[in-house]
């Protein structure tokens, strides 16, 4: 669905490159998490995907068409929910009436359902909402627009605790085989249960590009008390319960994915990436490369 083909991108001639010879493919029917440290280019990548920025070299294509051309045929099938946005001071119904003609697959039923799940009334005035409510209303519109590609930048920022679980429910309900959702976030705990694919960026390169199922098949994420055996552990870090560990998973036991732990592990032990990507088993990871993190 989306092909990023050997792009170079930097914000100015004297500025360091955000992406250098960067390539990525994102297929349809998945919720893809875009994770990375501050300044690694997550938001930049979303802007490149939506045609808001132009790469200096290479191309970003959506269904084979260069998004930098900003053709309505592609734009009507891409929706970006930025971290910060402005909504006009009008009622939601007027906002919908003014914007829905641009999105041929817009669904009133889906909008009503999203608003209901977010505990929002359908007759609200956008100028009178708090930031979190505005975000929920805007995300409801974005989901109801029915675009094949939905890009979300820090969608859970500004949402209260109940709204975060509402967000997961709403997104899961709106997911279809034809749709791809790319979520860029620092708040990994808010979305890790939702994701079925993870792309981790580090220093303008891809640290990990893997389905969550493949990760969980190779690795188990556990909390182990102090003194418990660590023979099968690939990475560990101290936690309140003792040790958070990533261990080999030869039996294929399914444990909940801990993205924060995985991200820290990949930064400290890059060899883990080959292990997950290849899915070839624990023997491929050299013991000295596991680099158990004792510093934290």
């Amino acid at each position, binding site marked *: 669905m989306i092909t990023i083909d050997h792009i170079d991108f930097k*914000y100015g001639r004297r500025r360091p490159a955000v992406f250098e010879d960067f390539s990525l493919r994102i297929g349809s029917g998945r919720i893809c998490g875009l994770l990375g440290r501050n300044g690694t280019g997550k938001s*930049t990548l979303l*802007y490149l995907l*939506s*045609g*808001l*920025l*132009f790469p200096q070299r290479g191309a970003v294509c959506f269904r084979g068409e260069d998004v930098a051309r*900003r*053709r*309505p*045929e592609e*734009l*009507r099938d*891409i*929706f*970006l929910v*930025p971290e*910060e*946005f*402005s909504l*006009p*001071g*009008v009622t939601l119904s*007027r*906002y919908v009436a*003014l*914007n829905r*003609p*641009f*999105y041929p697959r817009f669904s009133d039923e889906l909008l009503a359902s999203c608003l209901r799940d977010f505990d929002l009334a359908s007759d609200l005035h956008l100028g009178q909402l708090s930031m979190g409510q505005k975000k929920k209303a805007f995300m409801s519109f974005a989901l109801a627009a029915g675009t094949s590609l939905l890009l979300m930048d820090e969608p859970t920022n500004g949402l209260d605790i109940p709204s975060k679980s509402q967000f997961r429910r709403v997104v899961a309900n709106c997911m279809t085989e034809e749709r791809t959702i790319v979520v860029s976030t620092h708040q990994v705990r808010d979305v890790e249960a939702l994701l079925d694919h993870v792309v981790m960026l580090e220093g303008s390169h891809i640290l990990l590009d893997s389905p969550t199922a493949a990760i969980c098949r190779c690795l188990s994420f556990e909390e182990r008390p102090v003194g418990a055996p660590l023979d099968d552990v690939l990475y560990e870090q101290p936690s309140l319960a003792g040790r958070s560990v990533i261990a080999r998973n030869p039996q294929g036991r399914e444990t909940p994915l801990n993205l924060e732990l995985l991200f820290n592990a990949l930064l400290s032990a890059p060899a883990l990436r080959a292990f997950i990507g290849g899915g070839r088993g624990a023997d491929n990871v050299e013991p000295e490369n596991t680099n158990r993190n004792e510093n934290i």
Partner: protein
Amino acid sequence: MKTFDYRRCALVLKRDILGNGKKYLRGLGGVFLACFIVEALFFYAPSRFGVSDDFEGEQEMLHLLSRVAGCSVMMLSLFILVGAGQLFDLLKTKEGRIAFLTLPATRAEKYVARWVVSVVLWPAAFLVAFVAADLLRMLVFPLLGHAFPSAIPRFFSKLAEIGSELSDIVPWLAPSFEQMAERWLVLLLCLSWHAVYLLGSSFFRKQAFLLTSLTGILLLTLAGFVLAAVPPAHLPLVSVSSSVAAFCVADVILFCFVVFCYWLSFRLFSRVQVIGNKWFNV
């Protein structure tokens, strides 16, 4: 792909006007207030103390109405330039750029929709505000115990005078070819200034009107110095012996300049990115 769809362009226009209705109404209110203050400053004293009923008094009244009409035409001209400077006002914030650039319409449709707002609706808003201010003055002044005739007829007759002078650009209405070429020069000079402000709005990210004005003044001053330094005989335009030929050459140059400004303005808009230079859309 359809490069221009009238229906979609109308939707962009509708979205712009109705979505920013409050902002535009506030702007209209500001212009209305400005027009009312100008009228009050001109008319308050003469209407309070009255003008004599004789010929001189009538002449004085007509002169005053003419001055107000002239002042209003100047305000309208300024407003047209300010409107042109607001062509891409909505691109000055990152949020605005994201909302507008990701809107599913072609670049030409978005450009034309914004052009209609800044070039057609802004002057129309001024006319509405001027008429409303004059009517309010006509309503309020008698309540204060004094009155003065409406400036609306004089204002519109002034506009009609300008229009009839410019009608000489049409070959069968112009008394001579030289007159037509001269009128074209005047019209193209006005269009050039307007096009420069449209270009400025596409080029400058913030304070487009102000920065375009300052840049224009700076460039004209520099051009003045250069022209003063170069002997006139060396300039091809001045060396043309016939005035008709000089007008024609100037017309062609100005026409090309207007087309160039529009082309560059559209090109700059097409290349706008969400994050870029703080001051310029490059």
